[in-house]
């Protein structure tokens, strides 16, 4: 009886997991992405003759409009990474605008930020109380907090601002931050930008937008992005917090106080939304609280967070997208927005090449058809219907998500109810 050897045993006892793809670090992805975006925009700007696409003023608008969204998105990260959905960001942001106006009116811009933060954090604390302690559905609580935020601020501003501003819907103007420019650098970049040299001028324009008339708010926001990353991914507190969002029962079994971390996360989330409110107030001229001024930015922040795959760098990119697209369509000519179609052609074209390289013929074909369609749209039209222009960022978001959604990964226990001692 001859024996046939079956395959030798696997190294492990179970089926070997698929070879691990080298994980590219987040910062590298972010850098590569940024460079790619800048290159595409620069090419578009050059080929379509639309300097506005990469002008310093466009960049500044991106910053102005993107800041509150970014801060809200960061708030979303904190909360959702601990497993708590926070649809109440809008309400917390509204509380933040009121707080910022109140604090700013009495004690100046720095206290505006602080008191906006505190008001937002109070909203967060309420959300935490309802969801963590009472186990209320996260979305209901969020909806309620949005109602409460709007109601409470209306009420308080009638009570407190109206006597000073004669207007129940406005606060009196508060002092703004001084802005800062890097004098030599800004001018030098300005000269480069004016030269209209391919790429160099574009990059100079975008950079100049970042170093000219910088508000401390921008610096605070950038610091908060970095801090969010460091705290959540590089400290034990962050590890524990994230573990609550991935598997709270496991965390509990290792002695992690899940309730505490969830509370902290949601309160921090509210605080960030409050700072977002402060950023909105301080970013307006004159700097005032004004009823209805958040205009759904909280929801957009949430979208930016999902767009950014629940990560700070990605959220920064998402907020940048909204700020950029909104700023461009508000400040540039319709032709400049139209030129974005050209960018889309370039991006889809690159996708075709990538798919061809990976020998995915059908995907490549679909992408190619898409590229041709978008190009045709670009070629045969001069402007997009202006009614849709305000929604450019929304449409771009949908397209990007349609292309990249599979790569998104929410925390495993996001939105799940959790009760101490009930896991098995």
């Amino acid at each position, binding site marked *: 009886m001859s024996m046939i050897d079956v395959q030798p045993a696997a190294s492990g006892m179970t089926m070997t997991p698929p070879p691990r793809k080298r994980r590219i670090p987040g910062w590298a992805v972010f850098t590569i992405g940024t460079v790619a975006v800048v290159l595409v925009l620069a090419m578009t700007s050059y080929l379509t003759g639309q300097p506005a696409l990469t002008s310093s003023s466009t960049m500044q608008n991106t910053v102005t409009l993107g800041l509150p969204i970014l801060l809200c998105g960061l708030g979303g990260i904190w909360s959702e990474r601990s497993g708590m959905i926070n*649809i109440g960001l809008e309400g917390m942001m509204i509380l933040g605008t009121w707080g910022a106006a109140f604090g700013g009116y009495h004690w100046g811009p720095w206290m505006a930020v602080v008191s906006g933060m505190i008001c937002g954090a109070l909203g967060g604390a*309420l959300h935490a109380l*309802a969801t963590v302690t*009472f*186990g*209320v*559905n996260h*979305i*209901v*609580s969020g*909806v*309620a*907090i*949005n*109602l*409460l935020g*709007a*109601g*409470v601020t*209306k*009420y308080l501003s*009638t*009570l407190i601002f109206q006597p000073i501003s004669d207007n129940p819907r406005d606060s009196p103007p508060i002092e703004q931050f001084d802005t800062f420019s890097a004098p030599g650098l800004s001018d030098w970049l300005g000269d480069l930008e004016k030269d209209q040299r391919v790429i160099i001028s574009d990059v100079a324009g975008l950079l100049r937008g970042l170093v000219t008339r910088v508000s401390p708010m921008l610096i605070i926001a950038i610091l908060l992005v970095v801090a969010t990353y460091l705290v959540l991914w590089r400290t034990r507190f962050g590890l524990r917090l994230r573990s609550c969002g991935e598997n709270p029962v496991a965390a509990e079994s290792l002695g992690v106080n899940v309730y505490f971390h969830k509370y902290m996360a949601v309160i921090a989330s509210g605080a960030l939304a409050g700072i977002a409110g402060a950023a909105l107030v301080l970013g307006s001229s004159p700097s005032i609280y004004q009823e209805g001024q958040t205009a*759904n930015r909280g*929801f*957009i922040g*949430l*979208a930016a967070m*999902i*767009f950014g795959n629940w990560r700070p760098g990605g959220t920064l990119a998402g907020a940048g997208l909204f700020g950029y697209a909104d700023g461009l369509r508000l400040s540039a000519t319709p032709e400049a927005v139209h030129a974005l179609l050209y960018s889309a052609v370039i991006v889809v074209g690159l996708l075709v090449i990538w798919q061809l390289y990976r020998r995915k013929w059908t995907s490549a074909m679909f992408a190619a058809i898409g590229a041709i369609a978008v190009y045709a749209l670009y070629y045969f039209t001069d402007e997009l*219907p202006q*009614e*849709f222009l*305000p*929604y450019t960022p*929304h*449409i771009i*978001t*949908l397209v990007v*998500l*349609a*292309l990249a*959604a*599979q790569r*998104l990964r*929410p925390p495993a226990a996001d939105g799940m109810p959790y009760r101490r001692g009930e896991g098995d």
Partner: protein
Amino acid sequence: MNARLRSSLMAPVLAVVFAAALCAIVLVVSGANPGTALGAMIGQVGEGQVAVDIVNSTAIYMLAALAAAIGFHMNLLNIGIEGQYRVGALVAAIVGGAIVLPGILHWLVILVVAAVAGALWALLPAILKVTRGVHEVISTIMMNAIAFGLAAFLIRRDQFGILVGNNVTTEPIPTSGQVPGIDLGGRGTIFGLVFLAVVAAAVYGVVLNRTRFGFELKASGLSPTAAAAGGVNAKRMIMVSLLASGAVAGLVGMPEILGRDHAYTLNFASGYGFAGIGIALLGRNNPLGIAFGSLLWAFLEKAKGALDNVGVPKEIATIMQGAIVLSVVVAYEIVKRMDLAAEQRRVGRATGAAVEPEAAK
């Protein structure tokens, strides 16, 4: 079953007590007498057409909440009701104003158009969810915004808009397309389509509890994995439920448009979608609960005008809405926990999972 009845009554009672206490605190803190405020609000119901307005709004909220509830059963959060009902109303108004058909047929066509338009506005998020895994929350938030763009585009004067004074409206819907209401004279007119909401709630209840579709829907929401093993096609259910949710959402604007405005105008009300989400959750996605939730919401909305009369800032009403939502859900949560413990105790006793210490000896 007695225990069940007791506990199902207990939740709302506890909730009302909770909410009343919270609101009273808010009122007292703001220096008003809660009794006066409540009295004024209840008194308001007897005034003019407020009672009828409440009924009419209840119907609208019910439709919005039913739309949300369909999604919730599958753990889908359709934030897009806001956009879906806007698009549904606009397209239906355009079509309704452009055609003339005999009586009932006319407004039936309009209703179908509204539902189809609402469903179509939910189609893209549904497709993205099923084929690309895009989270419906984000895609519907985007679609809500884009709905404004579409509405602005379609109502342009070179599209379907006509200028009336400073307002822009669609072509008015001819009488054949208008749904007659119940005229109560000085008390107002109850929209005919109030019955649409009632029928929708009834159909929803039957479909959910008595049909295969409803069972599959609930099963997918409760446990997608178990549903899949039980032969439920998850992707199909996502498509169908989002589209159904969108279709019902498309109807939200209809009572007002066919019963009162007879056209889509720039003043078309917004915000029903978000209210619907809150109410669906208040009513625990249950048709009766939704009806009561809608009634409560409509009452607060319509009676809050009376607060001005007694010197209480009207903003309190919004605070009250938030407080009520929160306290109601907290109360439900507490009762649910007590229920669960009671049931487990019952099962434990019945099966004797472990004997009492005395018996062990």
